[in-house]
């Protein structure tokens, strides 16, 4: 057999509990060394997917294949898979010292006692835990961040080819979370270990991942790089779940010069021709708030599309201002503009003003329907 090209490979994997499908025929592959995130709201199947990689859950009988490094593992127990895993609750053994916790996997693998101390120390260095200070402490005496590091060291010390992380930063405060995000990302690059990361936090996934699989309703809605997921969401669900989105719909009335003309109650606009866009059918598009433009005073704006609207309110967000506008004929759009300093250069609009909202046709994302 040639060297496997994928660290993790799911082929039409299905998992049902009674009559409820936790995962419906999902397929994806993770390249070695990749930082791969499973992102989705709770109940979307991301944890079940991770648990199938770990071996705690098995796919249904005849429900597809799970491969790790090319090897079919559907029926292998977790202890036969040689993985590392960090749990949301850390799951540190409360009766063992930090050093014994980290040594656990090495002891199970029959690593000679003489080497264990050394490797434990190295693992603690890796996660920036001082061995002489923390080695003899019991987990209940540690802070959340310290426990997190112990859990990470315990998983990494056995040098697994694949590390599974189940919302590992969920219990940390914001500042520590940001710091750990960066450290995890660095560890992934430095060690060359494949990271499979489960999270419901879209910002975390965007920041850390090489690629993201967005899951919804037991299926994978879209797999792609953070930029692809954010800038080219394929379905309304992805557009809504990752960042904020505006949605417009209308009827296609013309198809000319690589552009579709769409009629909306408030006017017409154009979008790049998507595959399958047929005159006479309905079309759904998404627009990111920061891609929408408001003319700044009298200055002309760029953009080749616009719709008339009325300002409904301006929300101060610090670095950004979110302007909500009501579009004639129903619907609301959010326009995000940079805050130029409201004390010195206040916003030119107030609620009730009539404006035109502009954008570039290329920034419009044509959506497929959500799978039902």
């Amino acid at each position, binding site marked *: 057999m040639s060297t496997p090209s994928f660290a993790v490979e799911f082929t039409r994997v299905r998992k049902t509990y009674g009559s409820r499908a936790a995962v419906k025929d999902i397929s994806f592959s993770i390249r070695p060394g990749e930082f791969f995130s499973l992102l989705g709201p709770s109940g979307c199947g991301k944890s079940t997917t991770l648990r199938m990689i*770990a*071996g*705690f859950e098995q796919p249904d009988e005849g429900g597809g294949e799970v491969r790790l490094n090319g090897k079919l593992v559907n029926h292998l*127990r*977790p*202890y036969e*898979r*040689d*993985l*590392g*895993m960090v*749990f949301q*609750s850390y*799951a*540190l*053994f*409360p*009766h063992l010292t930090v050093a014994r916790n980290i040594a*656990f*996997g090495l002891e*199970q*693998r029959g690593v000679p006692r003489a080497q264990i101390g050394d490797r434990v120390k190295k693992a603690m260095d890796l996660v920036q835990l001082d061995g002489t200070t923390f080695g003899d402490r*019991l987990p*209940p005496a540690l802070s959340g961040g310290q426990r997190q590091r112990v859990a990470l060291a*315990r*998983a990494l010390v*056995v040098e697994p080819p694949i590390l*599974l992380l189940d919302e590992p930063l969920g219990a940390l405060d914001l500042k520590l979370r940001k710091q750990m995000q960066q450290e995890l990302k660095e560890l992934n690059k430095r060690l060359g270990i494949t990271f499979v990361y489960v999270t419901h936090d879209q910002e975390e996934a965007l920041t850390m991942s090489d690629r993201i699989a967005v899951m919804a309703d037991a299926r994978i809605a879209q797999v792609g790089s953070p930029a692809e997921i954010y800038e080219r969401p394929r379905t309304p669900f992805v557009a809504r779940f990752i960042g904020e989105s505006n949605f417009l719909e209308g009827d296609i009335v013309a198809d000319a010069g690589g552009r579709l003309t769409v009629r909306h109650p408030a006017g017409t606009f154009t979008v790049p021709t998507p595959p399958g866009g047929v005159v006479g059918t309905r079309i759904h598009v998404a627009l990111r708030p920061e891609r929408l433009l408001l003319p700044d005073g009298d200055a002309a704006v760029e953009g080749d599309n616009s719709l008339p609207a009325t300002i409904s309110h301006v929300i101060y967000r610090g670095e950004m201002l979110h302007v909500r506008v009501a579009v004639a004929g129903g619907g609301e759009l959010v326009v995000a503009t940079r805050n130029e300093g409201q004390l010195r250069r206040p916003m030119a609009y107030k609620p009730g003003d009539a404006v035109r909202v502009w954008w570039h046709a290329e920034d419009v994302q044509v959506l497929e329907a959500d799978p039902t």
Partner: protein
Amino acid sequence: MRVRRSIFRVINRRESWAGWSQVAPTLLFLVVFFIVPLAMMFGSSWMARGTYGGIEWRFTAEHYVRFADPLYLSILARTLAWSLGATLFCLLVGYPVAWTLANAGRWKNVLVFLVIVPLWTSYLVRTFAMIFLMRDSGLINTLLLKTGLIQEPLELLYTPGAVMAGLVYGFLPFMVLPIYTSLEKLDPTLLEAAEVLGARPAARFWKVIWPLSLPGVAAGSLLTFIPALGSYLTSDLLGGAKQMMIGNLVQNQFTTARNWPFGAAASFVVMSGVLVAVTLYLRMRDKAPGGGL
């Protein structure tokens, strides 16, 4: 330990009157119904025996010295051996039961209820029921004879085995429940963590489940060992009063033998055994993470 310390914190405060008034009812109860009787017992164990029962006000250590007699030493040894044996048996039988209960899902409460139900009946009645099971014409022998496995009824009753069976049967719930409690608290993700780290089932048990259930095991052993140590009904009824436990000795001294001081001394010998067991337990609990009961 923790409780005692906090009581002192209450009564050491400047507004100590308020503190004392809070603990006074408890203190009064303990003094009247526990400390005073215990002191009386202890005092009389150092007194001479009255001719017709009761005590004579003369100091003597003879009742304790009497325990050096091989007769009493053997009673003491037998009591210890049987109590420890019963505790060990209860542990061997009770641990798997507790594990099953803790993992019974929605049947958990029903099963726990079933473990407790026998305690609704008096221990005396249950011991008589054991007699009906084990005697020559009892259920066990009848069944074995009918199926032709044996030709003569087995001698079950009035043997050390019968006493052991009675003790195990009687005190099993006290072993099961504390172990169940500690196993029920066990976080199942710890087992998953161990499994990913390469631990097979046996390693998961000995490295994670067993150490984390030790507080329950200790509490259960204590709750089994102490009543077993002081039991006298079982050896009387199931053992046919052929071989005494120290509980029988105490009972005899206070009733038929009318030697109260010696009975009191025997009680304190039992109590010192209990004290050792409790001390061991407390030491273990203080060392264990997360504490015991």
